[in-house]
């Protein structure tokens, strides 16, 4: 496979350390309520030292932790939404976009990037949850598709890092169709034998989980991440009974056979390199030219 290019041993990740969690020297763990020293928490990759709660990260923080030396190039950052429905509720969609753009410094909820991981060149698309809940609409779908198509063109692996409430209702049917569009792009990657690693972080719901995110060759989740199709509140209302303990959490999905593994943030880079080594290995490989590799059903 020609995405082979001098794998190196992974270095200790050096992420950018601009945290979006509240200012101040100390903060409270959202899970165990322990008061944590901010500097120490940051050094621990924003994972609670007491209960292993994984704090949410921004897209750029994630990429900083994953890429070699935190170095990557961003693509298609000039793409912006144009409000095809002229959607307005209590607030105009255009105003919501503007607020999110000001708060995050991004044009929409996804970064499409390329860089090296353990020496392997690869494409990574990462969701920004603080941009309208990481919702997927035209721009996100387009950037994901471009990212996957670039991986196919360069014959390098692709990875997605999901953090999303699902499809963005303000773009209506356009948003829904991004599920079809991105799943078609995964199908194209499958036929081109491009390895696809899908990382599910808290939360990965609705139209994102029900499309490309659940289609990874390898699916990894962060501990405790909420992952599912319908929101827990909707399910509770439908079933008219309390949800089981740990419902829709990463551990629940692993238990039910829906994901390959749960990996602590601190071990993620090593794990990714092991997986990339496997896909890249030329030793005793077979051509398998007709195997789709993704079809569970024949």
């Amino acid at each position, binding site marked *: 496979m020609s995405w082979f290019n001098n794998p190196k041993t992974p270095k200790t990740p050096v992420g950018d350390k601009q945290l979006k969690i509240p200012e101040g020297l100390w903060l409270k763990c959202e899970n165990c309520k322990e008061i944590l020293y901010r500097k120490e928490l940051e050094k621990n990759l924003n994972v609670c030292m007491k209960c292993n709660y994984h704090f949410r990260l921004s897209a750029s923080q994630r990429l900083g932790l994953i890429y070699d030396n935190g170095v990557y190039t961003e693509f298609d950052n000039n793409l912006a939404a144009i409000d095809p429905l002229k959607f307005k509720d209590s607030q105009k969609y255009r105003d919501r976009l503007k607020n999110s753009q000001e708060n995050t410094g991004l044009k929409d909820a996804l970064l499409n990037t390329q860089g090296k991981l353990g020496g392997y060149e690869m494409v990574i698309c990462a969701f920004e949850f603080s941009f309208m809940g990481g919702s997927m609409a035209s721009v996100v779908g387009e950037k994901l598709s471009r990212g996957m198509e670039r991986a196919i063109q360069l014959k390098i692996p692709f990875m997605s890092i999901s953090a999303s409430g699902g499809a963005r209702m303000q773009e209506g049917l356009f948003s829904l169709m991004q599920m*079809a569009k991105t799943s078609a792009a995964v199908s194209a990657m499958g036929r081109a034998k491009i390895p696809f690693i899908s990382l599910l972080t808290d939360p990965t719901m609705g139209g994102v989980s029900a499309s490309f995110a659940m289609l990874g060759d390898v699916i990894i989740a962060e501990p405790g991440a909420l992952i599912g199709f319908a929101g827990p509140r909707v399910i509770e209302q439908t079933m008219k009974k309390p949800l089981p303990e740990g419902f829709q959490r990463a551990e629940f999905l692993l238990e039910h056979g829906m994901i390959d593994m749960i990996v602590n943030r601190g071990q993620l880079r090593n794990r990714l390199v092991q997986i990339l080594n496997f896909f890249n290995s030329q030793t005793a490989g077979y051509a398998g030219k007709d195997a789709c590799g993704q079809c569970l059903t024949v």
Partner: protein
Amino acid sequence: MSKNSLEFEKPIDDLLHQIKKYEDLSSGGKDYKAELQRLRKKLAKVEKEVFGSLTPWQKTQLARHPDRPYPVDYFNMMLDDFVELHGDRRFAEDYAIIGGMGMLEGRPVMIIGNQKGRDTKQKIKYNFGMANPEGYRKSLRLMKLAEKFGKPVITIIDTPGAYPGIGAEERGQSQAIAENLMEMAHLQVPIIAIVTGEGGSGGALALGMGDRVLMLENSVYSVISPESCAAILWRDASKAADAAEPLRLTAQDAYSFKIIDSIIPEPTGGAHRDGKAEATVLKTAIKKHLEELDRFSIDELLENRYNKYRRIGVYEEQ
């Protein structure tokens, strides 16, 4: 008059009722020509007023009309020798999705659709048309079977959405829908998807990827139901009528966005006023599109299908 009449259908139903009455009286020998003529003229006028300017919420109500033909009704009206196939071969049979083989004017097709059910007993059995993962896995099994033997796939969509249940999540609702999307993207036979009633979000899309996507004139297709949208926006599901406006969920909207390929006309007042006529129109449309798709090789078909979805989305490059 149907007990299921919608509020805005009432004036029309009243007129139809009166016309029927005079027709019955006429058959008794007395002449009510003038009276009937007056009523029919009035009916045409009222129909034009009511159905010429339906709001998105009224369209949603029509799309959900309890008297509207359901997918299985179209199967029965359009096909000869429908043979239903059951089960996902994984876990269970899901009655919310029905599928099987049939002959469409001598042409073999694999047909798959949603099942809502009419009476309470059926509704419970069919889970109100909301499929569990098994329903999507069954549909995929049938599509793969069609692919294996080179038969086209027709899907008829009318569902509020995928079932939001505990078991559905345990057994991978997301995975089932996602897998359908990926497989339908490269299924090596023509696929025609038709929304005949409610196209409810991801649960509808899971049967809705195809070389041709069509919608009936009074059907709707939406990323979220107006009720759920209202619940999110105003924490009040009863404001669904208001939420239906900005969602742009009508067939006409989808067509104007170039997301669907064509709109299939319905009789005045909706498909439920003449289901048989609608089935004929639908059958003609399917035949026409199948013949058009016949002209492409499988490679061309798949490339066109990819590009069809690839270009959906609006944005600017600054």
